[in-house]
């Protein structure tokens, strides 16, 4: 099930809201049970056959959590973590990477059979969440959760189940047992949900149509303007698609009393690749930082070791996104850039004007997205060649600009922290007549207008993919 669908918005969500809030606040476990049941249904909607995998993941992490976090010998506790890692990563490895590795080994002449495995939705997300619980419990950052339903709720909670953000157990541990739902929180959550929905329906989908059109063409025939438009469209699509989902997840969580951490902080205003990764998919980058990079030694080691640590993190980051060499190259692309900023040109970069740094950063990010989006490495390189003017003379750049001009403008504006600037401007004038009402009602009225526009798009459109569903 996707958030931007009739079934979720107008059936699942109102049914959940009514059932959930009919239960008195004091019956916390009953409310949790309703959330759990709805979350499992949400996951089963995409194919009930994968529900078993989800339940296995929950069971394994629950048991391993008991072992890892209990008052046992250190060795036994460590085995709890290892077991969780082996099973969790093993399942992830099989479902997501078995085919990729078999194909890669076959290119070396091994002749292995290539397993045809269907990728369960959201496996990367819920695997990492489960592991986060066991590791946090082992480290003592969180208490063991003896109630299996609460562990199940944490892992399967529908707002972030299939496309993140990756919610650390420590973030929601207390809220699972003792959150305080309130009408102001519900309202703010709903407003956030509707803004996210609009980002998805009104901007991401349109940019996706442009990107899909252009990337489906033979890259060698593309003129430079068209190739650039395609790359920029994808740059917009992936941001608005993914951040929209995070907005909706955060909003939905808030409606039910959960406070997830932000996952995006206007990444396209970054002035270095380092800054970009502090603003982009924050939950993933921080997960790798805390569970891979720092345990390996982070940057508090000698240079060769640091380089190795960075290499491992970015190799895994690329692989996490997909079982394809394109994603590996994409991850290593950022490895090289981060290495460069750290040890080679970082100082020079700092001395450049802000605009130049921004152009530098965006150029490198867009190039990275070409690797990410292309079907094969060959296509990616040909596409980049077209961007550099070595393609053909395919026109239609004007078409894509004229046809989607409202969406291009909206995308540029929405990339910038306009909302933040507006809120600050209104806050400074809050005592003046009318500004308080505008500050309070402006976002709400806009949210309802965006709901109407999103509904229009939903009712009339058939193009509604969620690209992060394959992770």
């Amino acid at each position, binding site marked *: 099930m996707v958030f931007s669908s*009739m*079934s979720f918005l*107008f059936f699942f969500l109102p049914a959940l809201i009514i059932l959930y809030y009919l239960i008195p606040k004091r019956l916390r476990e009953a409310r949790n049970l309703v959330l759990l049941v709805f979350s499992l249904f949400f996951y089963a909607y995409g194919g009930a056959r994968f529900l078993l995998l989800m339940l296995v993941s929950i069971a394994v992490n629950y048991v391993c959590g008991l072992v890892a976090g209990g008052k046992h010998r250190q060795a036994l506790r460590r085995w709890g973590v290892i077991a969780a890692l082996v099973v969790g990563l093993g399942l992830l490895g099989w479902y997501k990477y078995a085919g990729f590795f078999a194909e890669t080994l076959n290119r070396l002449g091994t002749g292995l059979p290539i397993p045809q495995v269907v990728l369960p939705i959201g496996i990367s997300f819920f695997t990492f969440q489960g592991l986060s619980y066991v590791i946090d419990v082992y480290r003592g950052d969180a208490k063991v959760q003896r109630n299996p339903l609460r562990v199940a709720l944490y892992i399967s909670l529908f707002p972030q189940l299939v496309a993140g953000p990756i919610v650390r157990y420590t973030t929601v541990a207390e809220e699972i047992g003792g959150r305080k739902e309130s009408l102001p929180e519900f309202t703010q959550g709903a407003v956030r949900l509707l803004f996210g929905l609009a980002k998805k329906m009104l901007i991401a989908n349109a940019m996706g149509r442009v990107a899909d059109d252009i990337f489906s063409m033979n890259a060698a025939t593309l003129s430079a303007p068209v190739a650039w438009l395609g790359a920029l469209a994808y740059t917009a699509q992936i941001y608005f698609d993914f951040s929209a989902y995070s907005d909706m997840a955060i909003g939905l969580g808030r409606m039910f009393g959960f406070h997830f951490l932000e996952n995006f902080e206007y990444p396209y205003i970054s002035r270095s690749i380092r800054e970009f990764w502090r603003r982009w998919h924050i939950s993933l980058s921080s997960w790798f930082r805390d569970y891979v990079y720092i345990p390996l030694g982070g940057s508090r080691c000698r240079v060769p070791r640091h380089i190795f640590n960075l290499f491992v993190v970015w190799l895994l980051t690329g692989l996490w996104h997909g079982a394809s060499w394109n994603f590996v190259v994409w991850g290593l692309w950022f490895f090289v850039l981060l290495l460069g900023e750290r040890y080679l040109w970082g100082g020079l970069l700092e001395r450049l004007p802000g605009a130049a740094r921004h152009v530098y950063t965006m150029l490198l990010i867009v190039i990275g997205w070409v690797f990410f989006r292309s079907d094969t490495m060959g296509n990616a390189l040909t596409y980049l060649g077209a961007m550099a003017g070595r393609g053909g003379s395919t026109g*239609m750049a004007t078409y894509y600009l004229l046809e989607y001009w409202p969406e291009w403008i909206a995308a540029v504006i929405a990339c910038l922290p306009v909302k933040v600037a507006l809120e600050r401007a209104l806050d400074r004038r809050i005592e003046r007549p009318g500004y308080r009402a505008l500050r309070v009602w402006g976002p709400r009225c806009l949210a309802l207008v965006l709901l109407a526009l999103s509904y229009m798009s939903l009712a009339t459109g058939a193009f509604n993919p969620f690209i992060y569903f394959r992770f």
Partner: protein
Amino acid sequence: MKKKSLGDILFAALFVGLLLAVMLSAVLREKGTVSYYENRTLAQRPALTAAGVLSGSYFSALDSYLSDQAPLRGTISKLSTWADIYLLCRPVVNNIVVSKDMLLAYTTFEALDAEEVTAKAESMADSLSALRDLVTGYGGYFCHVAVPGQGAYYSDRYPDYVNSRADYYAVEREAFSAAMARRGVDLLDIGDVFEAMGNPEDYYSPVDHHYTYYGAFAAYQAMMEHINETTGYDLHIYSDADFSFEEVEGFRYMGSRLRPLFGLVDLNETLMIGAPEEDIPFTRYDGGVEVEPVVFNLQPDSMGNLSYTIYMGGDIPELCIDTNRPELPTILIYGDSYTNAVETLLYTGFDKLYSIDLRYYYELSLAEYIAQVQPDIVLCIRDYSVLLSSEGNGTVFPN
């Protein structure tokens, strides 16, 4: 914790109320079966099966059903189309290139692979050559007629930044013509005929992908002249002197380019019909069943409009018009909808006119049908956009 305010209560009530209102409306309202302006059937509630639930296909179908049956979908679609055309001024709306005097089909850009086009042309010519041999084997005559579609005819009316397919059509016509000539298969390109006449403006519709009745009449004349020249028959060819045109008044022409735009563009074309001065009585059989002997169906559709289906009643899988004049030859016409308008004219020159549309006719293959009927003349009429396609009416010899 923040204190709740009246504003919070109002917003929450409005938000949840709207969600519930849509839910109830979606459940309670009567479901539609057809979308007139999209010209397609709407998804119906899927059957609940264990296999469907396990695989997720049931829910996927359910989502399609809910989207298709969304409350106010029709009104919203119309409003959205109006906004796209008049507010946002998008050049392409609902896959139609919109200008103030012409509505054309939008095609995504495609890199022209001349070698691939040539190979397809050779392959199609091979099939048609075999068909020609089949027809001439019993003493018949075969001719393939290539007709420009509206997009090809008005390719110069596309904006520069949209794909007009002009390059593709040029390569296609040349390759097909050469391939057919090498195999000695008779080909009549109506595009050449119209170009020689200066591409008259009133030959093609500004709101539909077909020719107008004037264009169909000119094509009919060209076909009959070609048949007479090639076969030696002396078939009567109607002209302005003994054929009268008549406007169909009182109805809007909801052409195939206008319909996706909900008729919101102010382009009105009058549909034309016609009749020879001297009436030619006939019996008509659709699928072997005798039907009303008319070639024009002036029954308006559910929205009170008329469309290109007034010609012959639309795409009929198989029909026969018997004029009971055994001194004249028989003709079989097969092809897509461009056959319909010319059939209203061609029947006048033959004893029997047979027509099949292989997109909908499955009883016999084309070769089997020809072998059974053995028409004196076999005419294939296809437009440039499907000229080299081996599907539908390009399936000369299945398997």
